């Protein structure tokens, strides 16, 4: 164990601390690097970081304990985390993980005796189209099978640095099977900014308004309204109006690339192959609301994209599309900084994301005030999804009427769908809004008879085969982009359990209903799985679902019962076939508990039983 006075630790951390300076908003970024360097965040490092940033030790320890990729205990020189989404499970993840554990002589979740390696599960890593997937020291491994795991075990045993592993293990394909206005058409970097400057900021906002673009991150809020609110917001602190730059409050543009909803991987593809479009959309947004600083909040699982994204930013700066005096415009400066997450689904929620950007625990804020008036550092802030910014760039380039002519009246434009599960061609499909589920299933080669589709991930909606004529649109089936397909004879109860486990694992723990309710939900499903469930447990699930929905602090808790109750409602057999015939069975076996007493007293008569 490292202590803060150990010279080894201080030598290891000094370059990291110096690189980040004394800015407390860098805390999470610093701790990520500490984890890389020490394979954990040891207590001694917490002391050093707290002293360096001059923040209370509890704050540093609080952040270190919040994020899944930071660990208080050593996680080994090689840390393997298998993606635990239901799609990975359907592709054999549980068996493969056990296979690797056996080969390496480790127990899941435990560090090997020699301190070399640990193997565990993590929430969906966003590789559902090429699973089963895993992360090794944060780098994605795809298409895992026994052969690859044999090779990986060999590489670990021979202590080969991950950087020297064969590149084919880390290949991530885009798998775009249908492109439209975002993915299917070329984009000339700078085109949208030029159009914006030529048209004017106000006029560009008017085009955004005309386009009727709605947020692609899930909630579907009209983007032009959000930008207008942010532009109009007056930042106030107790004691007066804040003026940060030239008599104006500073404003921020934040791109939400947390993409944590299991089954969603479309932002991964946008950032990998269309980063210019995304950064350009952010820059257009900056011009419209008057921001000079932007952030890309990139989920930790996508750290492999960091270097190439930094390269795109650099190229854009050199081309005058980012930085000071953009395209020679002396009153237009805007730059983008990338922050990495560290394994916390809740940080996709916009106010938790802002907390995380500030270097804190990712706890959703109380609202109002909303981020558009009080966001990052208390200043007006726009938080939009990656795809939303890509759309914004296209709108700035081609106009609002053009965009509004695509899709349906209430859901304009196209939607990127991440399709996975029981289909022949998993990957990305871009459709105009209004496409039916059946059309998508036909196009992606849904295997056999499709039975159910999980739309928009665990927090979305489960639909049955009776509903395949429904449309992808805000007015019918809204989605942040995930479509997980289940064929006939899949045990959907396992999907419900997987999703319930996910929410229990990812609950931030701030509010009572979600912190405890997601655990209770998980426990009831475990009870049913083990054959002890009764009809009264189903009633309890409904009651819990109601409390989660109506009492939770944020969207995580309020949607945590969705898949559990949807599957119960639409596929009751999946639950009922596992129930005992009795109406009620306690989780605690009273008669069983008396067994010891019977043994001691040597009784087994009628009165010694319940």
């Amino acid at each position, binding site marked *: 164990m490292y202590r803060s006075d150990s010279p080894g630790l201080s030598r290891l951390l000094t370059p990291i601390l110096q690189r980040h300076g004394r800015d407390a908003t860098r805390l999470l970024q610093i701790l990520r690097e500490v984890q890389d360097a020490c394979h954990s965040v040891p207590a001694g490092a917490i002391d050093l970081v707290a002293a360096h940033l001059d923040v209370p030790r509890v704050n540093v320890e609080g952040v*270190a304990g919040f994020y899944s990729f930071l660990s208080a205990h050593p996680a080994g020189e090689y840390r393997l985390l298998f993606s635990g989404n239901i799609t990975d499970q359907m592709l054999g993840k549980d068996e493969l993980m056990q296979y690797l554990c056996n080969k390496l002589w480790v127990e899941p979740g435990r560090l090997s005796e020699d301190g070399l390696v640990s193997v565990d599960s993590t929430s969906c890593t966003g590789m559902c189209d090429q699973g089963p997937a895993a992360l090794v020291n944060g780098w994605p491994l795809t298409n895992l099978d026994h052969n690859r795991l044999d090779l990986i075990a060999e590489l670990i045993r021979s202590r080969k640095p991950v950087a020297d592993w064969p590149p084919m293990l880390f290949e991530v394909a885009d798998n775009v099977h249908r492109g439209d206005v975002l993915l299917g058409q070329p984009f000339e970097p700078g085109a949208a900014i030029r159009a914006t400057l030529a048209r004017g900021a106000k006029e560009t906002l008017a085009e955004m308004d005309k386009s009727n673009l709605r947020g692609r991150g899930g909630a579907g809020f009209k983007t032009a309204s959000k930008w207008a609110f942010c532009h109009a917001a007056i930042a106030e602190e107790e004691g007066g109006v804040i003026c940060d730059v030239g008599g104006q409050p500073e404003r921020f543009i934040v791109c939400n690339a947390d993409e944590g909803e299991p089954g969603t991987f479309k932002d991964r593809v946008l950032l990998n192959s269309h980063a210019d479009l995304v950064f350009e959309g952010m820059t257009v947004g900056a011009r419209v609301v008057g921001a000079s600083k932007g952030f890309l909040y990139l989920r930790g699982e996508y750290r492999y994209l960091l270097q190439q994204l930094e390269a795109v930013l650099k190229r854009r700066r050199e081309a005058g599309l980012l930085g000071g005096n953009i395209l020679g415009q002396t009153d237009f400066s805007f730059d983008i900084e990338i922050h990495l997450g560290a394994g916390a689904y809740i940080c996709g929620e916009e106010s938790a994301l802002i907390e995380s950007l500030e270097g804190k625990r990712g706890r959703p804020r109380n609202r109002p005030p909303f981020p558009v008036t009080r966001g990052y550092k208390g200043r007006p802030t726009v938080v939009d999804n990656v795809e939303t910014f890509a759309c914004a760039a296209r709108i700035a380039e081609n106009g609002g009427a053009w965009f509004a002519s695509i899709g349906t009246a209430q859901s304009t434009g196209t939607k990127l769908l991440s399709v996975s599960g029981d289909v022949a061609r998993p990957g990305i499909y871009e459709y105009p809004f209004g496409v039916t589920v059946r059309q998508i299933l036909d196009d992606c080669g849904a295997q056999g008879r499709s039975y159910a589709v999980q739309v928009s991930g665990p927090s979305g909606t489960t639909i049955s085969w009776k509903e395949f004529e429904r449309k992808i649109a805000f007015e019918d089936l809204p989605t942040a982009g995930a479509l997980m397909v289940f064929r006939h004879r899949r045990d959907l109860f396992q999907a419900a359990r997987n999703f319930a486990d996910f929410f229990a694992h990812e609950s931030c723990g701030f509010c009572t209903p979600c912190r405890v309710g997601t655990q*209770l939900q998980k426990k009831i499903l475990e009870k049913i799985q083990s054959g002890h469930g009764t009809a009264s447990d189903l009633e309890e699930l409904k009651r819990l679902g109601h409390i989660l929905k109506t009492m939770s602090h944020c969207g995580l808790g309020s949607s945590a019962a969705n898949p559990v109750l949807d599957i119960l409602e639409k596929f009751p057999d999946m639950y009922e076939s596992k129930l005992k015939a009795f109406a009620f069975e306690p989780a*605690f076996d009273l008669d069983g508990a008396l067994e010891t007493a019977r043994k001691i007293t040597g009784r087994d008569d009628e009165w010694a039983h319940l």
Partner: protein
Amino acid sequence: MSKTITIDGLTVPFRDGQTIMDAALASGVYIPHLCHNPEFKPHGSCKLCTVNVNGRNAASCTMPATEGLQVLNDTAELNDERRALVQMLFVEGNHLCPSCEKSGNCQLQAVAYYLEMMSPHYNHFYPTREVDASHPGILLDRNRCIYCELCVRASRDADGKNVFGLTGRGMATTLIVNSASGRLGDTTLAVTDKAVQVCPTGALMKKGLAYTVPIGRRIFDHHSIKDVQTGGGHE
């Protein structure tokens, strides 16, 4: 004319900047609450104070009052849900009221009485949590912590010390103290600190006072938490 909202049909005045909870308390209307203490910045974590505002649920301790809001508070449905939340708090920790020195002065216990909680309903989690007796004057028993962060807020905002904080996530959330050893005795916490006085449960208690007021003569043994927290009922 002052601005008003209605709570269960009763007209309640408020000033700009007040929350629904502030307005209610000022008018002697009781909304069950645990993580709220008027002396500190609203937090919004226990959700006991959830009310229905114009048809939607919201935590009244963090929701700003605005003109004309129609608030439902003392309804059977809300009280059912609040009772479930209290039951959740009871089963996630280890609350053994009969042997707890805070019994009778404990807000968790008192609000459970108020909401007519007859049983914990859910199965107990029986978590393993650490007790810290290292401080000469103060006992920290994490078994009774409900993560209301009142001690965190009081230490930070009133005492200027930052003795407390939370780490972990979800069910693994844990109350931590500001010392490299992790022990309360190694922090700057003083017996006179505000942080020691605000705990609604028996998680943080002064040592040496056990049973100076016998059980049966403690505040909630005689008064409903409703009367105590709205300033009424003290005869």
